[in-house]
């Protein structure tokens, strides 16, 4: 059972991290249950990211059945999309963070 307060806490912490433009949490059915974006963008991300993380997982499994996908990072010109999928039954969620690249190292 998801502890809603804990989820809110994590979302708030992530959202306030430097460069984070937005976060989306997607459930096992590909539906966004949390998002800091407007509905249209959220729905787009939810469907594209779900499909992509399923495909990425099957590629990892095809390469080595013992292996498991842990994380994905898509760096684009404008920002980076970080995808943290969880595949364990009853915990199947995908956390998506869109982050602007921070240049001050």
């Amino acid at each position, binding site marked *: 059972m998801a502890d809603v307060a804990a989820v809110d806490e994590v979302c708030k912490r992530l959202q306030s991290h430097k460069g984070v433009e937005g976060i989306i949490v997607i459930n096992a059915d590909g539906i966004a249950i949390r998002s800091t974006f407007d509905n249209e963008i959220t729905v787009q991300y939810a469907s594209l990211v779900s499909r*992509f993380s399923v495909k990425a997982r099957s590629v990892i499994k095809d390469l080595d059945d013992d292996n498991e996908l842990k994380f994905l*990072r898509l760096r684009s010109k404008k920002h980076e999309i970080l995808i943290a999928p969880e595949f364990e039954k009853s915990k199947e969620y995908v956390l998506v963070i869109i982050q602007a690249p921070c240049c001050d190292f």
Partner: protein
Amino acid sequence: MSEIEATLTRIQNHKGVLGVIIVNNEGIPLRSTLDDVNTKNYADLIPSLSSLAKNMIRDLDPQNDLEFLRIRSQKHEIMVSAREEFTLIVIQDPLVGFS
């Protein structure tokens, strides 16, 4: 040609790197530091995944473009740089060198 060799050698000698593969845009591996079986597997599977990533970025914003893709798994990390003419794939164990 030797510049390509030098780059491949440099990447291959980097800490934790398990393999480097260059695939052309027809999915044919041009160079690889892995054995044939693994090379073929990566060459068959990774370019289409990176195409999917590229399309995803474009679908979200037609003015944006994919620059780099990192796939982290339990055992290692696959880094993909997909260009028009070829795709560069590097497999690295990210925990090597960390104590």
